[in-house]
């Protein structure tokens, strides 16, 4: 469609312009006819998406520049997010590896939920795709509008076309008795200045404007949101994001997985609420008031990858970690996540007893987590073949370990010594008495059980660690960007919602005053402003009567 875009005032407008960029006269034929209030969005300027002959890129641009599409994307995202809250997400379990969990717990709906991939909604391709599309829409919608808006607001003409003024949503027309129309306009301008308007006058035409900056609020908000979304995506850059757990028994030092750091749990303590602090129904319940890990963080400076030598550690930080107060060092953070107050077996010092002679050799130090590979005890030689932390017999009838927690430790040795097979004989040892009986150590060891035994003489030969503190170790390099994005977005929201851009145009033609006013939000305040200013120049008018109908936003 060919459209003549040259206005009668002589200004050449871009294709798609609704109101003349210079004088504001309605340009579109169907608009020029009636007297309904004008659509003032972007001051009627043309947007890029209104280009005459769209190519492929233009079509993509037009798609994402539509607010309608943006709202549809928001609504789909909203509905998708709802689906993810029906059952717990896989991410709520520390290690999710049971595909039947949802079916076992929730029955058929759970099975369908899992099969559809809704058990990880927020990591699914379609959900992330939606977020990316919202991001794209944010960029394109903003660019498509902010540029024409900026241009339109930057070169405003003071004397507007009469139709432009009388077809605003707030309008006043009336006769001015004063014959000095310029003087009258100047006096009104003075009043507007008192209400913090910027006033531009051109003879007996006037433009008053305030809080133009609030128009940039939505765009600043969108920039913040884009930054926020980019920061979220940046967390998938290798090394930017880490999330692991460390169980550190009291007194132990543990290497933090995938880092060069070691964390020592110097002391762990739990405080419970006393009965005086508890209400009646909670009396005598152990309700934790505070749990705290006195932690020291070490960095390895030498021998870090060498298995044989001990790493050389240097203390870099210390902190009393409690919930809401993590240890933090160079972007690495250790959070109090949980604790396990049950003591754990740390080491035993058994004697090797030759049952025939009754002679005892040792004791030798058998650490549960870091056993030696070889022990020499008198004529006997123990070679450690393997170790099970949580012993069990698996479905194939073979010994295996259920977990890495030392719940039922077991040690398989190759024993060499007098009257034994020169190639050595196998011997399994359960340091815990209860496991020894549960798994029938003597049966497993067959004849050798009659020859030797490991004996722990007293409790002093058993080392037990205190409570274990569970810490959550995190690295999140995107955080600063996330906060900056959120802050920018917040500034934009406040600018856009708590201030309103208000403009008043007026001109006097043959003693008739025509005044029109426009705001982007809060028409109630706009009408009050106009009525208050007119009252100052002795024109009494009810704010409500200024309403020219149409939209109120």
């Amino acid at each position, binding site marked *: 469609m060919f459209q003549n875009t040259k206005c009668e005032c002589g200004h050449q407008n871009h294709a798609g312009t609704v109101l003349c960029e210079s004088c504001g006269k309605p340009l579109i034929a169907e608009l020029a006819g009636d007297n309904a209030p004008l659509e003032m*969005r972007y001051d009627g300027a043309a947007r890029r998406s209104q280009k005459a002959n769209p190519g492929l890129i233009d079509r993509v641009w037009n798609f994402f520049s539509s*607010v309608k599409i*943006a*709202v549809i994307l*928001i*609504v789909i995202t*909203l509905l998708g*997010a*709802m689906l*993810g*809250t029906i059952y*717990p*997400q896989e*991410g*709520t*379990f520390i290690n999710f590896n*049971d595909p039947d*969990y949802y079916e*076992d*717990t*929730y*029955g058929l709906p759970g099975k369908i939920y899992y099969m559809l991939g809704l058990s990880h*909604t927020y990591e699914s391709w379609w959900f992330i795709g939606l977020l990316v599309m919202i991001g794209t829409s944010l960029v394109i919608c903003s660019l498509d509008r902010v540029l024409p808006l900026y241009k339109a607001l930057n070169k405003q003409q003071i004397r507007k076309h009469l139709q432009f003024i009388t077809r605003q949503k707030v309008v006043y027309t009336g006769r001015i008795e004063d014959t000095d129309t310029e003087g009258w306009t100047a006096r009104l301008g003075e009043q507007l200045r008192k209400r913090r308007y910027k006033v531009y006058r051109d003879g007996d035409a006037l433009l008053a404007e305030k809080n133009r900056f609030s128009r940039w609020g939505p765009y600043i908000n969108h920039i913040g949101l884009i930054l926020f979304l980019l920061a979220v995506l940046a967390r998938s850059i290798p090394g930017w994001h880490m*999330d692991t757990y460390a169980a550190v028994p009291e007194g132990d030092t543990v290497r933090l997985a995938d880092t060069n750091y070691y964390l020592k749990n110097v002391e762990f303590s739990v405080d419970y609420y006393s009965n005086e*602090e508890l*209400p009646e*129904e*909670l009396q005598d319940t152990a*309700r*934790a*008031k*505070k*749990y705290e890990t006195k932690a020291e963080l070490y960095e390895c400076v030498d021998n870090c990858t060498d298995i044989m030598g001990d790493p050389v550690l240097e203390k870099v930080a210390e902190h009393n970690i*409690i*919930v*809401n*107060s*993590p240890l933090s060092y160079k972007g690495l*953070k250790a*959070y*109090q996540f949980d604790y396990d107050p049950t003591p754990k077996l740390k080491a035993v010092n058994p004697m090797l007893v030759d049952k025939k002679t009754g002679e005892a050799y040792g004791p030798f130090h058998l650490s549960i987590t870091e056993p030696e590979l070889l022990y020499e005890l008198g004529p006997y030689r123990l070679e450690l073949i393997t170790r099970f932390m949580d012993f069990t017999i698996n479905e194939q009838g073979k010994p295996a370990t259920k977990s890495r927690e030392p719940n039922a430790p077991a040690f398989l040795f190759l024993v060499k010594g007098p009257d034994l097979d020169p190639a050595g004989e196998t011997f399994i040892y359960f340091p815990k008495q209860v496991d020894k009986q549960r798994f029938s150590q003597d049966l497993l060891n067959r004849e050798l059980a009659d020859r030797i035994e490991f004996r722990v003489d007293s409790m002093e030969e058993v080392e037990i660690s205190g409570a274990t503190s569970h810490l*959550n170790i*995190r690295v*999140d390099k995107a*955080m600063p960007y*996330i*906060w900056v994005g*959120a802050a920018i*977005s*917040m500034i934009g929201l406040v600018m856009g*919602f*708590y201030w309103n851009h208000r403009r008043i145009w007026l001109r006097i033609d043959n003693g008739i005053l025509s005044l029109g006013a426009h705001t982007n*939000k*809060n*028409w*109630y305040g706009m009408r009050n402003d106009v009525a208050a200013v007119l009252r100052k120049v002795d024109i009494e008018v009810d704010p*409500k009567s200024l309403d020219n109908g149409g*939209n*109120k*936003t």
Partner: protein
Amino acid sequence: MNWLDISSSAFIAAFFLYCFAFLFYVIAVAGRKWSNRKPEEHVRKWSRIGFVFSTIGLAAHLVFFFTRWAGAGHIPTSNMYEFMTFLGMSIMIAFTIIYLIYRSPLLGMFALPLTIVIVAYAAVFPQKVQPLVPALQSNWLKVHVTTAALGEAFFAVGFAAGLMYLLRVIDFKGTDKAAKRAQRWIEFTLYVIIVIVGFIGAVFLFRGMDYQASFTQTNISYDKTGAESITEDTVEYTLPPIVKPYNSVTTAVEPFLGMESPLFEAPSWMNGVNAGRKLNTVIWSIIAGTLLYGILRLVFRKPLGAVIHPTLEGIDPEDLDEISYRSIAIGFPVFTLGALIFAMIWAEQAWGRFWGWDPKEVWALITWLYYSAYLHLRLSRGWQGHRSSWLAVIGFIVVMFTLIGVNLIIAGLHSYAGVDG
């Protein structure tokens, strides 16, 4: 008399002051057409009285809040009772701000009953001061919860104004399809509100009767390794059991109106915490609400919407539309700050991640997305009047689901918020 006693007295005072204020606002609006008076003067006089009462009520509510803070040693926003009373107080603050901008007594006629219902609902929950678990021991408890609640309170005022707009403009005499549909939905909305009132009424009625019943429920659950574990739990009812918990045996049931045993059992798929009791509560709420609704219909002999509609005659609907929108526009940045940004800062500090897709977080995001859609539709697509008001009404349902529904139905990290319905 200690702090907590002063606090409970102030709470009751606030509740009754709100009730009186509501009455005066109703007189202000409905009494305009009474004989021998000038309507404007009448409205001015009675709305001033109403505003004085609602402001004193708010002051008493603030006394409740700060004395409880002093007595408990921590800010009273840590369980459902405390949070809901705080939400009620925030709605009053939001209402006062909006009232000072627009000076519309009508708003009181709708915002006050909303506050009254929410405050009464709060009283359903256990009111004991509970010591804080370590996760809540943070200054962010003060900042995050209060800001989020204030944002939501503005949404609530937006809802009240939106509902008023609909009651004002819907054509209750219309017989065409659109008018019929609008009438049905507004009536349904009012019915839902009455069901909530019915719920509160039922709880207090049986609490007054000191009603009790208990069951032993056998729960079979599977842990992550697939091992089966069986536990026996006692489930206490305070409402007569129409539904008993799934897989349970009756321990003790007081007969009520000749009903000595539960009528049926909760289905197995409802396996949340105390699902049976919650279902029983829902059924009682619907019974009580329907009864109440039926009585009202018998008294007025026409739909409730058509009863309220004439009292709003002569009020400019565009003012209501604008109040609804402005309230939401004022609340939106506050909500963003409190429910999302402050929440993220605290989550980062307490749990080590600023966002974890916990159901409460997701629903806060859903609320935010919903209202951003509302604002875009209104500002860019020109959705006003009817459509905008319906969105404001539905939006508040989303808000309430985020606040209460998530805790009742979906368990998550916010489950410590002490729900016991």
